[in-house]
């Protein structure tokens, strides 16, 4: 935002220094730490206003009247960022219960009204496989979702649908019962790690085209689901429903469940583990190894990879120097492992575009921001997650290519993350990764939409970072941001006011007007802020 408002970078520098100076002033007056912190926040806001509205200036002028004789500096442009970004707020994950009723409908209805008044463009609604096709294959029940879509339409909001072929832990939303029953007898439906741990919150990508679901392939089942959704919601699609994203894996993201066995208590994220140990994955690996002339490489995953919570250098595979990842075997394995993910993504995206391509809605897929260990040479966590992205290789190029091929857009979560939010020791860099993925996408002409990291509590400074990401020089091209997620915390006094402020700061200029403190309107006529007018008077008199 700042960049688009301010005409030149020179002025930007001015702003920064100015803020710094003001801050310095205040803190030199007082020793009280909490005071300084407050005033810093206040100043940030001032600056925002200074940029955007009529507000701050008179006050600012007061600050520095003594400098009035100095030559004019370039004028601030009054132009606003191109009509801001359209913001979508996620509805509660369990907005529709397993019994196909709307959970806390009253709260959602009030929330929708509030969002509409705030100028939010729309909401995002997760449609769960485990809810809509709960009972039996082919028996769909979208009634709860239909009711909700009507509510959204009535509220005058747009809708982004997330088709969720995965399950959720909190709140608990499982895969369809008939699927989990099959899974009971055939654990090879699921991803499996080296030690046998199964990830039961989505199906393994290796079964995509195997007839494991009562004679049908998961792809066929997904396709039926999508088509049924399309026909059930035809009257809303492309009017109320403007976008559909399709689940590509765990949590809907295109990745392996590389972190499924991470202990929650561990403070530092370990590297995660490869998830290629279910029967079908191993089968694919074996075939691939034989085809490449190294059948011995196809017996299993790397034997020297660390465990979930371990650091990269705790075993030899990911070692920065001389690690197995840089050996021909490592390259062989990682290429295969990541290619399986890319193919899976390609299958699902082409499915989605074949079903919805003619409706005019945008189709999205979510690419995760696996930012831990990004600053190491091997990028271990990205490797276990399925992105063969290392110091030697761009792993996101092929991903972006797949999106481009299917005319799909990318949703990138983590717009709110700052490198500084993470301890140095994790070598995390969400910001660099974000720009790498963006660069890959822009190379292939793929639009990128943003999403926040959906942490339990929104990180401090997250809104500022999102704003920067949205409107910086390489800001979101398609200008959509999904913000997760409506619920008690979202509307809590700790969170909602800052969300409101964020919303208003990115939205249209009309809304800004009311950013003006009320006194400002009268200010020109009567001295609500007396000193301001006073000095104004002196200024004129002088």
């Amino acid at each position: 935002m700042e960049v688009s408002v301010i005409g030149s970078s020179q002025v930007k520098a001015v702003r920064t220094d100015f803020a710094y100076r003001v801050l310095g002033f205040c803190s030199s007056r007082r020793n009280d730490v909490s005071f300084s912190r407050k005033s810093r926040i206040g100043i940030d806001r001032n600056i925002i206003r200074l940029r955007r509205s009529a507000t701050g200036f008179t006050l600012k002028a007061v600050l520095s009247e003594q400098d009035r004789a100095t030559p004019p500096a370039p004028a601030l442009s009054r132009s606003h960022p191109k009509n801001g970004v359209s913001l979508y707020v996620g509805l509660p994950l369990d907005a529709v219960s397993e019994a196909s009723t709307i959970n806390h409908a009253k709260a959602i209805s009030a929330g929708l009204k509030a969002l509409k008044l705030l100028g939010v463009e729309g909401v995002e609604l997760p449609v769960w496989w485990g809810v809509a096709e709960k009972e039996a294959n082919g028996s769909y029940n979208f009634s709860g979702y239909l009711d909700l879509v009507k509510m959204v339409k009535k509220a005058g909001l747009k809708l982004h649908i997330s088709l969720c072929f995965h399950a959720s832990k909190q709140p608990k939303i499982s895969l369809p019962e008939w699927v989990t029953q099959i899974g009971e007898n055939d654990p090879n439906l699921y991803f499996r790690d080296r030690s046998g741990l199964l990830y039961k919150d989505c199906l393994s990508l290796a079964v995509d085209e195997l007839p494991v679901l009562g004679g049908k392939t998961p792809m066929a089942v997904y396709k039926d689901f999508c088509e049924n959704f399309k026909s059930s919601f035809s009257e809303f699609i492309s009017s109320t429903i403007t976008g559909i994203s399709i689940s590509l894996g765990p949590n809907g993201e295109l990745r392996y469940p590389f972190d499924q066995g991470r202990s929650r208590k561990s403070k530092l994220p370990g590297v995660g583990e490869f998830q290629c140990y279910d029967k079908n994955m191993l089968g694919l690996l074996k075939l691939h190894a034989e085809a490449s002339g190294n059948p011995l490489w196809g017996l299993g995953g790397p034997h020297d990879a660390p465990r979930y919570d371990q650091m990269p250098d705790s075993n030899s595979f990911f070692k920065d120097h001389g690690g197995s990842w840089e050996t021909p075997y490592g390259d062989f394995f990682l290429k295969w492992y990541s290619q399986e993910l890319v193919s899976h993504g390609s299958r699902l995206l082409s499915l989605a575009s074949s079903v919805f391509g003619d409706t005019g809605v945008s189709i999205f897929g979510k690419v995760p921001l696996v930012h831990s260990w990004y600053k190491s040479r091997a990028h271990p966590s990205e490797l276990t997650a399925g992105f063969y992205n290392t110091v030697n290789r761009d792993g996101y190029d092929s991903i972006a290519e797949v999106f481009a091929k299917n005319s799909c857009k990318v949703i990138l979560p983590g717009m709110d993350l700052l490198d500084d939010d993470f301890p140095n020791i994790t070598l995390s860099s969400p910001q660099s990764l974000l720009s790498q993925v963006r660069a890959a996408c822009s190379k292939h002409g793929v639009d990128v939409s943003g999403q926040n990291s959906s942490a339990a509590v929104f990180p401090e400074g997250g809104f500022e970072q999102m704003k920067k990401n949205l409107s910086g020089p390489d800001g979101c091209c398609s200008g959509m941001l999904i913000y997760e997620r409506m619920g008690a915390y979202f509307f809590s006094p700790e969170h909602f006011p800052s969300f409101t402020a964020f919303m208003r700061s990115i939205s249209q200029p009309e809304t800004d007007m009311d950013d003006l403190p009320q006194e400002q309107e009268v200010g020109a006529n009567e001295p609500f802020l007396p000193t301001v007018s006073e000095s104004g008077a002196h200024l004129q008199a002088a």
Partner: protein
Amino acid sequence: MSTVITEPLLHHDLRGIRRSRLKSSIFRPASMSFSRQFRCHGRIFYSFKPPRKPFIVRASSFGSAAIVETFDFTDVFFRETFPLRWTETVEGRIFVRLDKEKNDQNWQLTVGCGLPGKWILHWGVSYIDDVGSEWDQPPADMRPPGSVPIKDYAIETPLEKAPCTTEGDGLYEVKISVKPDSTIAAINFVLKDEETGAWYQHKGRDFKVALVDRPHDDNNIIGGQKGFGIWPGALGQLSNILLKGEASHSKEEGTDGASSNKKQEDSCLGGFYEELPLVKQIPVHNSVCVSVRKCPTTAKNILYLETDLPGDVIVHWGVCRDDAKNWEIPVAPHPPGTTIFKRKALRTLLKQKEGAKGCSGLFTLDKDILGFLFVLRIKENTWLNSMGNDFFVPLSNSSNLVQSIKDQSETTHISEKTDGENEEVSDSVYTDGIINEIRNLVSDISSEKNRNTKTKEAQESILQEIEKLAAEAYSIFRSSMQTFLEEAVSESKAVDSPSKVSSGTGSGYEILCQGFNWESNKSGRWYKELKEKAEEVSSLGFSIIWLPPPTESVSPEGYMPKDLYNLNSRYGTIEELKDLVKKFHEVNVKVLGDVVLNHRCAQYKNQNGVWNIFGGRLNWDDRAIVADDPHFQGRGNKSSGDNFHAAPNIDHSQDFVRKDLKEWLCWLRKEIGYDGWRLDFVRGFWGGYVKDYLEASEPYFAVGEFWDSLSYSYSVMDHNQDAHRQRIIDWINATNGTAGAFDVTTKGILHSAIERCEYWRLSDEKGKPPGVVGWWPSRAVTFIENHDTGSTQGHWRFPGGKEMQGYAYILTHPGTPAVFYDHVFSHYQSEIASLISLRNRNKIHCRSTVKITKAEKDVYAAIMDDKVAMKIGPGYYEPQSGSQRWSLALEGSNYKVWEAT
């Protein structure tokens, strides 16, 4: 040379407060910093202020008494009195003097204040051998008459009016004598204004007067060094006190006349005299009365404005011709002595009333003018308006349009700035740039102004609507979160009653850790020490920690609370407490605050010299004290429970007391983040009040200490303790089950059973556990030791060396078990951890079933939920293999626990 303005924690920038909550929380930070900046930079304006005041023109022929008399009040169609609330600034001085007593070798420290007020010197001393900066109480012979000991480390001495004063009528001082041979290294003090509750500190720390030479790097030693800082009342009383620091006139007195720094180098004590100006702001109430009548001859309206404000009052006014309240200047003639301000408004100086305080003015207005808008200026820069809005007087003739803004007419004091000396302001190039940008923008904006004003009200109402909707959504989502938990619990098992989350039980799976003992206050940094153990507490499997009482207290342990809103205690500061709570939340442990609601220590004496007037934010008087304790001469009703005789017992039947306590609990929840309460001495008042408090503060968990005075005898105990547990049950009942209670009965019976090897006692006549846990397990908080019964007090210690039998009992049985800190961090830790982990693993909860399988002389055994079997006592027991097979999970001295496999 600067002016320092105190902004207490509760910032009273009323421009912010006046707004709706949502809006203010969005904008207040901004306006705070605005005002801060402009205050800090107040002096800047002065450098640009023209030497004259162009807008003040004395009115000589205006508003004479004769005109006033012609004002016929019978024609008045509008009459309104607006209250005006503002703050008057009073200047005075604080001085500190150290000199020799006249005919004595003693040194004398005099602290005085030139402003009227109830000044209290809050002080203590440091002894020579003391390390650190802890305060101690001075020897008795040092304490001036009227001194009151505060806890065990400070003294409060009121400042007395000086007998012979050169300061006129307002000098208050206190003298402290110091023997030359005393071992006192320094006197520490802060000054407190009892009226406003404001504290004065020195550069944010205590004042410190060094009495012996010793190396010190404290920069808050006064004498020779100049400058005061002040410390607003810890709880942010709204007092606004300015201290003009650094502008002090330091005069050297005493024997050697050198600077005190020099003196210190010379290793000899020297006298000094420090004087510092201070400004205190006193709230003042005035009003302005506006009447309007029609002039019968000219068809104009005549507006008469009258106020009792002292001094020159300028009306800054304009008129409007539409509902949008856009200011305009009416056509001339204007009242005599009116100046035009920036072509936007008029300024008229009101005429002083003859022989009376206040002033008035008369304004003639054309009939097409629909409204008269004004604000008032008194003194140099004090503006008064109506709750942040202009005063608005409707002038429409039709009476049904006569509406006043009475409802919102509570007036606010906008702002005030104080003269200060110029200060160097770094002239920087970038600032210039900013200013010019601002100018350009200002002109750019003004064209949008009108549109802007019109949309403003709509915007305001939209914001309010959003706020309302968000609040509604929030409350539903929040409550549905509980529903969710409830389902989770009932899913697992509902035995004797449907499980749900309630403050009496928490989730039902809670395990408490008492996070302190009787000595925890000694270090002064308990919060920090405990913080380091937070992860350990969490990893041991505890879900709740009970923290010590947080308030200011007469006793260091915290159970004699004084100012409930002062959370700086011997355990640490409020910030450290918040930090600690945050830490526990990070590791998923809920936090109980130990709240003492039964009694409270007074801060002042009444006219009879009885300590029964409270201070701090809850400045109750003797109506808040129960009537039936003669010690404290309370004027409240009779106590609804037993009396605790060491302090005034609070009368909970008083509405204002309950309201204040509820607010306090809610404040603790919000400000500190406490999840629930441990309620001290609930025997002292009716459980129904507890219910009231819990419903207001909505804790996640609450437990009351209903400990019968030791009716328990150490000789042979009755097998049947039903009467004892019935009293506890009755209390829980009175709270409507909103709180649990410590199961004192179980502890007592365990004592006998284990000590005397009479394990048969552990089954009541109906084959149930004999304590509260046998009758109302979900509300029983079982424990074997706490800070009173054990620790260094040992009022009723659990049989030594046999604690693990106790824990094997309570950690396997229903009820909510509580483990004492001393045991958690002892050689028992691993055994306790194993028991907790077994309890969690088998999902034993507060309502689990107990089947007592053996209760004989030397062994007690029971099976819980068919999942866990246990035995204590030296006798033999093995659980029967029936439907399930048992495997021994834990074994210790005289206890065994099995799990079903």
